[in-house]
């Protein structure tokens, strides 16, 4: 009997999602089922052998990499398993925290469906059809984002519109690319195709000026849900983008294209950083910080000749843990405080010291503070940008200061006592169950910062799936 890996990492999560949807009201059961499935699939992906044949009595189970659907194939390649282990592991972490106050009950099944669709997107042949699977994931994500706020509706509709417009652009660009390969380098069609492709990815990755939905959704929707969305979507789209560089030599060898990617990345770091520094709302600041992170990923791709793709991949786990902690801390504060305006969290560090520490730790880890998870990668990237001889290094550095400035503003507000607290000791109100995850993830972030290669380098193994990019 033959089984296929797509059945394990695509079909099975969909089945579990269906069960979660049916038993939507059994919250604890849903949390356990989602987390166990996600962590189980992550572990399986991490330790799955290249060729597995299981013999159970007279039954022999052989695993193959591909599954045929309607004349096309979906493949979960052995080389991609570390990445699949990573995204399912992170899904498990988010699923585990889905019992937080206010997290929609649809989050768990939707998270599973999104992860399954996006896993399929990475392995569908022809690879361009991934655009449709990404669009499916976007459509599925809408119910978990929607809240009662009108502002959130506008942001979500903008998100939906921009993502939907991106899909045809990628498909048309993909069709054009098949013809472009045989054209001479001076053909104008090459530039037009690259422009169409770039526009599609810019829409997908919320590159300026298509970024407006990010802060709107970030402010209007639940922080746990938004942090998951802002982690999984750009991560998969960036890995999907590697397919284009791997397959088309004219993209891979064009210095102009990499220059443009570097400039766009720097622009996002600068604009995102400045906007983050100026924000008065904690959730909006998270949205803008996510744009800065996309900027760093683009900057890393821009330096792919200097090993930038390794940096891009190594940033993913550090970023994912930072986003999770940020989303977790914001959720807790949203529950405890009346508002998430920066002035409204005045004195919070006196009442919730470890939760406040968690929030600041997440921000500073994402910002690249020394000893924290993102620092080793970001310093390498900034050094490379500075060494490239242009002003990219200076601008990227200025942009990355934005989140530091916002964190300092937040810290000053949080430790400032309320009028009735001046004379008193810190009245700590947080419970152990609330701050324990903060401590665990905080320790992991510090450990990653201290020994980054041990925690981050394994993900770069997936570059073997892109032989031209190694």
């Amino acid at each position, binding site marked *: 009997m033959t089984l296929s890996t797509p059945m394990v990492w695509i079909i099975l999560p969909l089945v579990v999602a269906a069960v979660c949807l049916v038993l939507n009201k059994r919250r604890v059961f849903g949390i356990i089922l989602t987390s166990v499935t996600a962590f189980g699939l992550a572990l399986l992906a991490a330790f799955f052998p290249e060729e597995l044949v299981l013999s159970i009595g007279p039954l022999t189970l052989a695993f193959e990499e591909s599954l045929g659907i309607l*004349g096309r194939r979906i493949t979960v390649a052995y080389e991609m398993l570390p990445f699949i282990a990573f995204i399912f592991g992170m899904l498990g972490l988010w699923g585990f925290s889905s019992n937080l106050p206010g997290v929609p009950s649809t989050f768990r099944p939707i998270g599973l469906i999104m992860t399954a669709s996006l896993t399929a997107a990475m392995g569908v042949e022809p690879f361009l*059809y991934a655009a449709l699977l990404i669009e*499916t994931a976007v459509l599925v994500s809408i119910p978990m984002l929607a809240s009662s706020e*009108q502002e959130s*509706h506008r942001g979500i509709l903008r998100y939906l*519109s921009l993502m939907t*417009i991106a899909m*045809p652009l990628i498909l048309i660009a993909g069709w054009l690319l098949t013809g472009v390969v045989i054209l001479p380098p001076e053909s104008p*069609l090459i530039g*037009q195709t690259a422009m169409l492709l770039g526009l599609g990815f810019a829409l997908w990755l919320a590159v300026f000026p298509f970024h407006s939905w990010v802060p709107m959704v970030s402010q209007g929707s639940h922080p746990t849900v938004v942090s998951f969305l802002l982690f999984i979507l750009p991560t998969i789209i960036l890995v999907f983008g590697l397919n284009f560089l791997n397959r088309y030599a004219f993209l891979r060898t064009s210095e102009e294209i990499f220059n443009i990617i570097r400039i766009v990345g720097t622009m996002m770091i600068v604009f995102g950083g400045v906007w983050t520094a100026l924000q008065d709302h904690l959730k909006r600041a998270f949205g803008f910080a996510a744009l800065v992170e996309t900027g760093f990923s683009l900057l890393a791709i821009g330096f792919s000749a200097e090993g930038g793709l390794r940096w891009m991949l190594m940033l993913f786990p550090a970023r994912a843990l930072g986003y999770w902690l940020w989303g977790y801390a914001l959720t807790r504060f949203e529950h405890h405080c009346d508002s998430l305006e920066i002035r409204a969290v005045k004195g919070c560090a006196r009442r919730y010291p470890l939760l406040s520490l968690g929030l600041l730790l997440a921000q500073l880890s994402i910002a690249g503070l020394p000893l924290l998870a993102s620092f080793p990668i970001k310093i390498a990237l900034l050094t490379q940008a500075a060494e490239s001889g242009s002003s990219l290094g200076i601008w990227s550095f200025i942009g990355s200061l934005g989140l530091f400035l916002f964190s300092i503003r937040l810290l000053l507000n949080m430790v400032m006592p309320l009028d009735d607290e001046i004379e008193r000791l810190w009245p700590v109100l947080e419970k152990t169950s609330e701050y324990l995850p903060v401590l665990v993830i905080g320790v992991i972030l510090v450990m990653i910062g201290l020994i980054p290669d041990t925690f981050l380098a394994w993900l770069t193994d997936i570059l073997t799936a892109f032989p031209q990019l190694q």
Partner: protein
Amino acid sequence: MQALSTFAFVLIVIAAMMILIFRDWRINAAALALQYLAAFALVTLSWPIGLAIVKLIAGWMATAVIALTCLRQKNARDSSESGASLVFRGLAGLLIILLIFILTPTLQAQVFRQVDLLILQGGLMLLGMSLMQLGTNSEPYLIVISLLSFLAGFEVIHAALELSTLLTGLLVVVNLGLALVGVYFIIKVGESGETSKEEGDV
């Protein structure tokens, strides 16, 4: 065939203009259904009818889902717009038509050589009109109708480039998914409208 494609193209222009100009859900739903019929006619020029009809059925299903939800919404507003806004959107639509007639021959000569001019014009007309529609309103159901029109335009052009069962299936999923998202928002907006009305009554 030429007469059919010309008729389909004219139908697309009329339907797209109706969707762009009017805000009444009844007119928009009827125009969307007509638009899918015309798009189907253009797709049959490239695909066998058996496969092309999938697009028509999926499109009409999406239209029916949105129209029935609007019908059931108690507070679905009737359009009461000034004549000036209708004229403005009409002129914007005419500008799009003009632009597409100017651009299409060049685009066909340089990029889409194997695509029939009428198919390209029909597809681009839907794309252009829906983008204009997206830029001129913020009503959830109108945004979803615009996105459905946008996808229909893309499907008309893409059908002339490639034939794939999986792609057709995935596009059906996306179209129906969009319609369901539209329903979700129509209901959400309806609920919040009712709540605020009740609060106002109190």
